[in-house]
């Protein structure tokens, strides 16, 4: 399977190791992974802030880069959801482009969803040990139905204990530029999420979207919690001691 990896702008910038972890997992599942070099950002920030023209330009750019692949996979529910559901809507006024958007949307997957349902990855490369809880990111969960997939993968690690926190499906308060525009509200929402996770005494809060993870990590550290780790599930699945 020829899989195009959409690294995502946040992973590129902040956590390259998540990108490499995704690469490792896809290769472990037997995929040939292509990383288009020209990729930048899927354009969701433009779309969510009402800049349709640039959202459309960035959508077309990404479509051109990835439409040759058999699948597009992103280690982010948010970006995958934007390609899957945002692109056809953004390009609704341009039939040719919309058709291309729909074709790409049909083969676009969030990483965990792809590994479980398409690539059927059985054996995880890592051997992470510890007690974790999983935060369901909004777009992945409500946009793409990503809920059981990452849990199924994580539970294949024999030394990993998964415990559910209250309100796992509630938003962490990130919301893209919302986190900067309404920083105080965003941080207050994140605080509730952190408390729910801390109440379980976990070693790590794990999720599938870097935006949420940076938000949660930033809040934990500000709250004085230097212990609780915040990790992408791809990092957990590939972690080796």
């Amino acid at each position: 399977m020829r899989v195009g990896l959409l690294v995502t702008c946040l992973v590129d910038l902040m956590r390259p190791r998540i990108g490499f972890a995704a690469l490792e997992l896809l290769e472990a599942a037997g995929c040939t992974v292509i990383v288009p070099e020209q990729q930048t950002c899927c354009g969701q920030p433009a779309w969510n802030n009402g800049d349709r023209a640039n959202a459309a330009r960035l959508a077309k750019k990404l479509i051109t880069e990835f439409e040759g692949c058999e699948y597009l996979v992103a280690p982010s529910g948010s970006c995958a959801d934007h390609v899957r559901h945002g692109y056809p809507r953004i390009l609704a006024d341009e039939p040719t482009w919309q058709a291309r958007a729909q074709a790409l949307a049909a083969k676009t997957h969030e990483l965990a969803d792809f590994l479980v349902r398409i690539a059927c990855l059985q054996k995880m490369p890592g051997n992470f040990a510890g007690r974790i809880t999983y935060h369901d990111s909004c777009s992945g969960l409500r946009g793409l139905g990503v809920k059981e997939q990452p849990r199924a993968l994580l539970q294949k690690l024999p030394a990993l204990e998964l415990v559910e926190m209250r309100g796992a499906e509630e938003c962490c308060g990130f919301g893209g530029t919302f986190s900067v525009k309404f920083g105080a509200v965003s941080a207050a929402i994140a605080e509730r999420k952190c408390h729910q996770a801390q109440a379980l005494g976990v070693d790590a809060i794990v999720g599938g979207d870097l935006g949420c993870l940076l938000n949660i990590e930033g809040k934990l550290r500000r709250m004085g919690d230097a212990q609780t780790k915040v990790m992408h599930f791809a990092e957990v699945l590939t972690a080796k001691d």
Partner: protein
Amino acid sequence: MESRAHRFRRNIAEALANPVLQANLSKAKGKFVEKRAQAIQELDDFEATREAAREIRDRVLANLDLWLETFEANARARGATVLWAKDGNEVSRLVVEIAKRHGVKKVVKSKSMLSEEAGLNQALLAAGIEPVETDLGEYILQINGYEPPSHIIAPVVHKSLDEIADLFARTHRTPRKTEIAALTREARQVLREHFLTAEMGVTGGNFLIAETGSVALVTNEGNGRMVTTLPRVHVAITGIEKIVPTLEDLSTLMRLLPRSATGQSISNYVSVLTGTKNPAELDGPEHLYFILVDNGRTRLLGSDYQPMLRCIRCGACMNHCPVYQTIGGQAYGWVYPGPMGSVLTPLLLGLEKAHDLPYAATLCNQCGVVCPVKIPLPELLRNLREEADKRRLRPWRERLALRAWAWIALRPSLYALASRLLVRYLAWLAEGRGGISVLAAAPGWTMGRNFPAPEGETFRTRYRMRKRGP
């Protein structure tokens, strides 16, 4: 009601800095959510019921003029008078006129958000007519100097028992009580007198039934029945979109409204009121008026925002909204808070007066999945953002930053360079401490949390190095 939506940011800061409000909000959070989740379980097929409800509401909106005329004809045939109001001022004028015509000195009110839109209490007071709110929550707000509601079905959800105990002791000049039952009994005693002496009752209407010309009231306290049966005159004020074609349609919507709102299978009272009292009946009003209000709603018909008119005012969207849970309802500045308010307020008042509201959402779509009539709230919020951007209502810095970022993102080589420099800069700021506590470029972020340090090189750079080999 005068809008404070234009000063939304200040309202937020005040809400976050108010420890009593914050304590009350965190106490209230979850109650509605859990109860609704349980109530939804009772339905054999929630999604199918939701789809049926959406279909009913869309069917009405597709031919709203015809349904309104049908309603008007049937209501008239049962002895009611149907009046039309263009805006809030007209509502107030009509109500005052009706009151004067019937020599009314005192009006008892059941809960009505439309009367909040119109600022009806102030208009009645100005005309020398005493309004008395009889919904317990609304009554509490009234005796607290006409404080604005913070929720469309639980207007005092932001208040604690202690605050209400103080307020009752002060207003009623009675010993302070802290038991809910005792407080309720006290309110009931005070209100009973008003029910018996008021000449006119004013209510909202949850639904108008076109085939019978009736209004349906969904309440829990029983005050709605007192207001509509004891006084000689009943005035029901609703938005024009509240029509349902038949009683059967009403029953479909009633499977969803109480469950979505309070998590009840059915509310304590569901009243379907039709026509004036006829000679054989013992109670009911001698005069029944419907005031059907536009106040900006017709503008939404046929627009991208028409789905908003499906709204049945259950409040589920705000109950599930992380932003509402954090700032409470009053911060939104007008009658309707939460996601539905962030859509409706700019649409009814003008986007220029409330353009911050559509941005006050994480677009988590929790509201979209709980909405019983499937209003795509995040999509409507995003549409409003597009409109605000197009009309240049947003600060120029925000627009510029967004455009500059997009311009770079469209140029891969430039983007590669810019991101490499940015990452180095961020890493330098973090200086191996794992995080940045003050980030001048994004003060909004670091106000309440650290900005985690980047790894140090971009994925792009490292991937290229790896491909070249060690």
